[in-house]
């Protein structure tokens, strides 16, 4: 009985706490789940320009803001490659965008992006957010920061924002594959159950 009461109190506390912060959440800039995103045209590491509209057959995209220098981003490199190999053939290719300003973070220069992609064998575009113009539209705050968008008649709609899974630092301890679950749901025409998750990352360097 006592436990039940305690539980109830804590639930109330959470609700009150959360409602106190709804203001700051609505002030949050950038795309939210359900928003239609604008297409972009960004330079890839091979010198070509890449837009989402280039992918005529895509059903959607896994867009990841990542970089060369953040340990959390590095921890996810192999997992992003696996995601692309698994989901590009199903219509959800990975698009990686480096939002860091190389003047603020020298390890994220164009040349070093080329080198890193080669070393790791990236199977997807690794784009430069020149002038740091695209990441603010998404409301990305850190690397890695991931978005799943679905192609619909009204445009590319954001369906998921957040982490790839529940174990950034240790790929062997993953128990929840948030991003895969989201794409899997979309592939069978279902609603994404968990639309937003959070993970630690490195602030974007501008």
């Amino acid at each position, binding site marked *: 009985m006592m436990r039940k009461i305690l539980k109830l109190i804590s639930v109330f506390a959470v609700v009150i706490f959360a409602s106190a912060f709804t203001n700051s959440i609505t002030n949050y800039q950038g795309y939210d789940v359900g928003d239609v995103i604008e297409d972009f045209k960004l330079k890839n590491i091979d010198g070509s320009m890449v837009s989402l509209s280039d992918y005529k057959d895509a059903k959607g995209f896994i867009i990841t803001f990542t970089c060369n220098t953040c340990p959390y981003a590095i921890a996810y490199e192999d997992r992003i490659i696996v995601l692309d190999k698994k989901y590009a053939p199903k219509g959800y290719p990975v698009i990686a965008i480096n939002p860091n300003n190389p003047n603020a973070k020298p390890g994220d220069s164009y040349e070093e992006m080329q080198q890193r992609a080669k070393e790791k064998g990236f199977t997807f575009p690794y784009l430069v957010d020149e002038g740091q113009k695209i990441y603010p539209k998404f409301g990305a705050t850190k690397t890695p*920061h991931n978005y799943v968008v679905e192609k619909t008649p009204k445009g590319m709609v954001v369906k998921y924002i957040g982490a790839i899974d529940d174990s950034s630092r240790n790929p062997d301890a993953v128990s929840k594959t948030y991003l895969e679950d989201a794409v899997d749901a979309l592939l069978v025409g279902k609603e994404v159950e968990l639309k937003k998750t*959070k993970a*630690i990352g490195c602030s974007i360097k501008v």
Partner: protein
Amino acid sequence: MRILLLLLILVFTISCKDNKSEKVLKNVEVEEEKTLQSNVDLEIYDFEGLKTFLNKKDDKTYVINFWATWCGPCVKELPYFEKLNAEYSSKGVEVILVSLDFPHMYDSKLKPFIEKKDLKSKVIVLNDDDENTWINEIDPSWSGSIPATIIYNKNERKFFERSFTFEELEAEVKQLK
């Protein structure tokens, strides 16, 4: 021909042996380094353990900074937190630096860093993989980037997902009182 082959084998075995002894030597050096570094005892907590530091009800003001040795902006602002701790610890302000370094970096990076920078503020380590749960519990507005800082006392609590200068930190702490 046979002699040549024998010679070759001999040369190989000798060079192999040399390599091995070199490796052994290197290992010993690494061991020594490690024992030197272990002067720092880390306090490591999961989120349940960390909560005690986030919810104190005494008369102090707590400044809780989430950082890591690999985080450039965090390392840059650490001296300001150290200065705050030095100047205000006698005035009821306690700075706690919560490291989010990866577990495999505790010995190789974190402990040497704490020693080299001679950090005087209390350093604790948060080791909890379930980030999606504890980020929201620490503050629903936190997107998860670091540096991030909580400044609180028993009456008021503020959360910041940003970097600080010393003056800004000082102003926030004074405002809270």
